């Protein structure tokens, strides 16, 4: 197929960016979206234009490195990561608009690459269990109901890609945060620090410039791991509880 690509190019964080238009011919429908960009980059390199910078690493949908706004949708038209999106989801002759994640919390680094280090800083504020290496009790000493363990796993599958933020009109990272609060809150190991965790993570989230949640649900619709919206209800409940406990 032949495509017209409108792509955001920005030399670095401090320079202004703009949309550039490129033509790409003979795209195979078996290519992944990122392989299509690889082919475009080969073409640009041959023509003497610097290739387009974009993040990707595992290219199998699990590391969370990739993520593009494709025709206005985070990760494009399918419920998957950008690396697992294939060109058969597009039509010959189509014009595709490709932009970086759009959020104040994720400043652009170059072209399609953004800085998501705010997510790491949110985790630093309590997205863990305080247990030093070697001090763990025998694994079978605390049984966990299967239902809780399964749900904890389901929400722990978050890959930290940032699509939830990119999709949210408020630029909120509540789904990302709620997934971690819910994961650790469902397990006995997560209880001792439960109040402190939610209070500190939410404070960091707001400090980073992410917006508040108004229950639109665009985040969960864009999430490649289908993290459910009710993790945000859990987040709010945990926060209320923590405040009631005097935090």
């Amino acid at each position, binding site marked *: 197929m032949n495509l017209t690509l409108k792509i955001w190019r920005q030399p670095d964080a401090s320079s202004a960016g703009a949309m550039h238009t490129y033509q790409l011919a003979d795209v195979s429908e*078996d290519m992944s979206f990122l392989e299509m960009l690889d082919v475009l980059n080969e073409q640009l390199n041959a023509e003497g234009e610097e290739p387009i910078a974009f993040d990707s690493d595992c290219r199998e949908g699990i590391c969370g490195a990739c993520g593009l706004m494709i025709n206005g949708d985070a990760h494009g038209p399918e419920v998957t990561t950008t690396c697992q999106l294939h060109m058969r989801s597009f039509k010959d002759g189509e014009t595709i608009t490709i932009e970086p994640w759009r959020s104040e919390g994720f400043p652009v680094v170059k072209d399609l690459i953004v800085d998501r280090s705010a997510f790491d800083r949110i985790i630093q504020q309590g997205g863990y*269990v305080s247990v030093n290496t070697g001090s763990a009790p025998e694994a079978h000493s605390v049984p966990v109901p299967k239902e809780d363990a399964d749900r904890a796993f389901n929400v722990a599958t978050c890959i930290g890609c940032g699509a939830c933020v990119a999709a949210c009109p408020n630029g909120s990272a509540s789904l990302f945060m709620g997934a971690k609060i819910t994961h650790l809150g469902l397990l006995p190991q997560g209880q001792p620090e439960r109040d402190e965790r939610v209070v500190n993570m939410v404070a960091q989230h707001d400090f980073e410039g992410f917006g508040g949640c108004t229950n639109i649900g665009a985040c969960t619709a864009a999430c490649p791991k289908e993290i459910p919206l009710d993790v945000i209800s859990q987040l709010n409940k945990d926060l209320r509880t923590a405040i009631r406990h005097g935090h």
Partner: protein
Amino acid sequence: MSHDTVMTADHDDAAGYYTPGSPLVDTKAPDAPIAERWETRKFEARLVNPANRRKLNVIIVGTGLAGASAAATMGEAGYHVKTFCYQDSPRRAHSIAAQGGINAAKNYKEDGDSVHRLFYDTVKGGDYRSRESNVYRLAEVSTNIIDQCVAQGVPFAREYGGLLDNRSFGGVQVSRTFYARGQTGQQLLIGAYQALERQIAAGTVAMYSRHEMLELVVADGKARGIIARDMVTGEIQTHLADVVVLASGGYGNVFYLSTNAMGSNVTAAWRAHRKGAYMANPCYTQIHPTCIPVTGTHQSKLTLMSESLRNDGRIWVPKNQADCDKDPRDIPEEDRDYYLERIYPAFGNLVPRDIASRAAKYQCDDGRGVGPEVDGVRRGVYLDFADAIERLGRDAVENKYGNLFDMYARITGEDPYAVPMRIYPAVHYVMGGLWVDYDLQSTIPGLFVTGEANFSDHGANRLGASALMQGLADGYFVLPHTIRDYLADGPFEPIAEDHPAVVEARASVEGRIEHFLTVNGERSVDSYHRELGNIMWEYCGMERTEDGLKKAIDLIRSLKDDFYRNVKVLGSAETLNQSLEKAGRVADFFELGELMCIDALNRRESCGGHFRGESQTEDGEALRHDDEFAYVSAWEWAGEDAAPVLHKEDLVYSAIEMKQRSYK
């Protein structure tokens, strides 16, 4: 470029390609019965008192299971840690992609498992080419890993009673694999990442993401730091410390196409190799039989699908070449060749990874592969679930393999419930890596190596669910003990930024970058990488021969030469520049690839993932030669134009008897 020619034994296929060196011995494993070695070593390794730990600086490169776990643990202990990763966040390291599970000798199933059995299975699985002291210790600490991960909140699969579930994995007869659906690596890595982030918040660990180590600083015979490039600003930075740990993963991307992440590379390890760290068994590569085939030259990576598919799927190709482009459903039963069931009636589709992989290659070489033609050959075989669906029903198959079928459908656009899947082998893991002693210390004092980056535990073949075990064993429970014996002599005398070793290392990095940006040739970095990968896959892949390997060495040398003269890297050194990053990595892959071929040439036997066409039984099975090759090949860099030096570490087994495997 000239290469020294040296005399070696007449029967040595690699004669002329290397220089024989002195034998190598691990002096760190205590001379005690195998079950007491680790306790003895932990007791004998000197302690560093908590007040002194604050004065000691540790650099850790890589934040996968082996790096993040070590950084968190060393931070908790009170050392000053600096951690580096090339990704935008430590959570993205490629450990995250491991699917199957993690082994541990908990014996929760009371099915006869024990530390000794896990040790035995791992040595046997490695085809008797691993060091037994290290493997025994790995099995010993495996149980601590599960305790630690559960305490961190890793959501392992559980039974209805609330206790941890186990499954059997990779052809062993006990159920010792802990898992979190098909995403065990992700959950374990997030556990280690969270422990790491906790230490970053506590101020014991400083994290440098989007930083790539480009050179090792070796001053006065000790590893004392690294030169790193800030991948956003291009700044070349010097980081100095008392000790350096490489946890930088494996080098499967030397094959260009592999199941590794796009950024996985050998540069950190290779730069250390060039500074004096020996590279051990570089030719030991694991090739996984059930990956999604290549669709065209645009292919950038390969995706693995769990081996569990072979439990119910039947593998076949058409008997006649003329049928290869037909719809498989139109090929009648009598025209199908279920070749694994035919050749290996006892194990059938469940033969080990290397046998299944090689058999698929032979069918395709024979012109009976299926799927699209790439470069004139169809490289794929069918994995057919029609019988399973008829026997168990579609729902049962969907319950068992639904997520894998979905993944396959998403990537290929085909419905595997209706049409047989197509699979082909792909490079998945490397058992080779930097040589380390029992303390995980390389041949450079003060340089320690953990996880896939070292060679120590898997011999010539790694068992399923053992990579995660090794990464976390090294990082949480082994390195933090062994490194203190080295650090007990520290803090070492500070070295200045104008120390000749620092100046040399920085100049080397800057010179390389300058070179790549000024060649201004005709070909992209990727095009060279792809061509190198084709050479490696063709001649140093599933089957290696003397002629093929010698041809590969010539091809690699001339391609490398061309690369330095004709590569085209645009952009500048002062900004984020992905072509420049790749150029440095590919340059190192050339040198590694050549060494892998020389190593494979020297080892004229078949063992584990290394199959030499000249060394097979009448039935085409791998044939080991324990009388000649029961050693670790540890290669020393001898200089740009010199042949590498081979040091042999003899493998001695006191607790296990060497046997030849058979799967017929």
